[in-house]
């Protein structure tokens, strides 16, 4: 249950050794170009490119698969909704049930949903090479070098930290509940207990984050995070970026000018 996107940062791969600034910048541009894709065939191509980059990282595929669960939960319903709601255009194939005439199923909606899903999956998979191949703080520091404002950098770093505060509080409290032989049932008592649990969890997490803040102030924190890390981009780093830019160009070109399938 740990939000450990950087669990595999110690592996060695061409993606790991890529300068974090160039890596993040290049992959973000790739992600944007994927999101602009119109054709489902190009979307498949994007998925292929994402998986290829992912394979280069040597991070076990099962680790990345877990990240897809959230996307599937979010985009999954589109497969149900879009075929029913897409406006019919000439050339669409529409199925309907003889007894439920109002339920029209438009296959183009299915295709649209598939395109959205493919793009979402390709982009989410990219977050693993983007942020999973360096220690999280170094990736975040790279963002600072890319001129992301310090306040956003701090928000990212501390929300990462606070997730751990929240989780450890959650663990402590659910243990306490188990020890007191709480067993959930479908009754008012259970509901109230969960309500109290949630309330206490939030209050405690808040109190603890305040204490973290006090500890930071005590050590001279003035609202600006001072970051010391030397990045050095070599020829190889630019080479890797230019390979990706060729792929980006390929995606856009194919998507605009290829009229097939």
């Amino acid at each position, binding site marked *: 249950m740990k939000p450990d996107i950087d669990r595999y940062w110690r592996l060695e791969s061409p993606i790991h050794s890529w300068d974090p600034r160039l890596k993040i910048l290049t992959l973000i541009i790739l992600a944007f170009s994927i999101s602009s894709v119109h054709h489902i065939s190009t979307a498949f191509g994007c998925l292929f490119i994402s998986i290829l980059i992912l394979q280069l990282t040597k991070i076990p595929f099962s680790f990345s698969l877990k990240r897809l669960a959230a996307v599937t939960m979010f985009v999954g319903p589109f497969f149900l909704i879009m075929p029913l709601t897409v406006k019919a255009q000439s050339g669409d194939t529409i199925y309907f049930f003889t007894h439920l005439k109002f339920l029209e199923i438009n296959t183009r909606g299915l295709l649209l949903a598939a395109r959205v899903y493919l793009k979402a999956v390709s982009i989410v998979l990219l977050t693993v090479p983007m942020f999973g191949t360096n220690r999280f*703080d170094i990736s975040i520091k790279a963002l600072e070098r890319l001129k992301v404002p310090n306040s956003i950098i701090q928000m990212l770093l501390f929300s990462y930290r606070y997730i751990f*505060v929240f989780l450890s509080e959650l663990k402590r409290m659910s243990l306490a509940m188990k020890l007191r032989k709480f067993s959930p049932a479908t009754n008012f008592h259970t509901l109230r207990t969960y309500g109290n649990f949630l309330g206490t969890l939030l209050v405690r997490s808040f109190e*603890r984050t305040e204490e973290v803040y006090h*500890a*930071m102030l*005590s*050590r*001279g924190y003035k609202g600006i995070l001072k970051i*010391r890390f030397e990045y050095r981009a070599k020829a190889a780093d630019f080479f890797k970026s230019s390979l990706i830019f060729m792929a980006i160009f390929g995606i856009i070109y194919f998507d605009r000018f290829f009229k097939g399938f």
Partner: protein
Amino acid sequence: MEKKSPIISIKNLHFTYPDGTVALKGVNLTIQEGESIALVGKNGSGKSTLIKHLNGIYQGDRGEITVDGLPVIEENLQTIRGLIGMAFQDPDNQLFCPTVYDDVAFGPINMDVDEMALHKRVQESLEKMGLMDLADCPSHNLSFGQQKRAAMATILSMRPKIMIFDEPTSNLDPKNEAVITEIIANLPYTRILISHDLPILYQVCQKVVVMDDGRIDAIMSMEDFITNRQLLRKNGLDFTFKCDCCNGHNHEHRHNQIEKKSLSF
């Protein structure tokens, strides 16, 4: 006694939390350089609130504080925070950086210590706390005892003049407790120690400040304090509960002394 100006001086300090809780009701206290103070009192008596005023985390509604001659006001805060190393009760809250190394470096970096000196300080502090092997570890992967030691390293690296510890040995196993006690006892700084653990207080401090309900109730020598059983009991410090925790420490003669006195009641 001495002509020297005190390192900490608190005059008539009042403080009310935003929710209306009146936590400090006129605190007066003077601490000389090199003194080691035991700050004791029941839960909720205002100990933690008081120490957070010393480096300006909270600012009193009324009263005056000076640290090393500097009034605790906005423009002196950065200097004063460099003078005071404060170890919080829960080490998990004191460790917020990605790795132990970064956490230990956090204070000195904020104090603008330069690169070479920084590395040396961090190494030294980690070594002192026996954490060299864990420098690159994320702190949330450490055991509780290791976290306590890491939290201590984070303030050692600031090289403060004054060190403040809030319950440094609470929830520790005897082995780590002994290690931490030993280190605190040998630090060459002015120290303020909040604890419910009499053996460590006795080992480290010469002077006791008793707080009660937001006020200073009594200031006395450690000798007077440990013979005042009523006061001990009132502040949840009756040593008969904790006597066996001295086992294995190298202060038998002191331990005997405590026991002899306890027999006289």
